[in-house]
């Protein structure tokens, strides 16, 4: 078995993860989660259920479009696709994330308190 996930998800990062994942292809909720798990090597703790309110909220905001379709094995599933507005939001979230981690890195790398 793979090691248990040990990183708690920071507030507000789930949107970024979902938008980025869906930027590759339309997927249903479970596939989004599996993709996140695989690419982050199962290090992030995502409360699985929390994914769905997030998906529907982003659909409401027009960042995602949902449509019922069928999986490869012929089961009905709800697929989500990134809209143009969603792509713009992804860019904003990526910028925000980059600035955030830069700021934290500045503090971590600082050489002690200045007088």
């Amino acid at each position, binding site marked *: 078995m793979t090691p248990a996930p040990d990183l708690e998800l920071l507030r507000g990062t789930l949107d970024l993860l979902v938008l980025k994942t869906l930027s590759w292809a339309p997927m249903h909720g479970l596939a989004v989660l599996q993709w996140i798990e695989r690419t982050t090597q199962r290090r992030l703790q995502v409360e*699985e259920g929390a994914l*769905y309110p997030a998906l529907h909220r982003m659909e*409401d905001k027009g960042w995602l479009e949902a449509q019922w379709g069928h999986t490869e094995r012929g089961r*009905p599933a*709800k697929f989500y696709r990134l809209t143009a507005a969603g792509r713009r939001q992804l860019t904003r979230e990526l910028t925000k994330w980059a600035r955030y981690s830069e700021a934290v890195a500045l503090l971590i790398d600082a050489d002690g308190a200045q007088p």
Partner: protein
Amino acid sequence: MSARDWPRLRRLFRLPTTAARVRSDVDQELHFHIEGRIEELMALGLTRADAEREARRRFGDYRRIESEVERLDLATHRRRDVRERLEALRADFAYTVRVLSTQAVFSSVVVVTLTLAIAATTSIFHAVDRVVLNPLPYPAPDRIVYLGWRWAGKGGIADALSPRSFSFWHDNAQVFDGLATVRSFEAVLGEG
């Protein structure tokens, strides 16, 4: 046609999305997730019962999540319905304006006809209203007259009347049963 074509049909006929429909969609979506997880875990060697327990544990509070997603969906649908209705209204209005503006002569005939018809109806109703439907609330309303005075050659009835003029009329006029004064004023009702 499968049941999954319904959303499109619904949009076509503009029927409102029912709460029951939203609920069954949400249920189906969440169950698909849990069912998929159970299969994954069983492939790793868990029994069905263990797999189901583990899948539900990882999913979290099902009831809470279900009701939150339903609430979000209902809000989305409501907003979408309102938006579609407004768009239809705007389209109809734009179409009307476009058609009327390409046929200016016809449009002006329509406008003039409507204006005359409305004016005629209003005047006739006003007269009928006063004479037949709602005569003045006094005995013998047909004997009541409005008395005023005008400057020679200036036109228009003067509204102002001095107390002395009134008492002169009151004491000397012999063709009337009685005389009274009326005073009108403007008042703003409501806010603003």
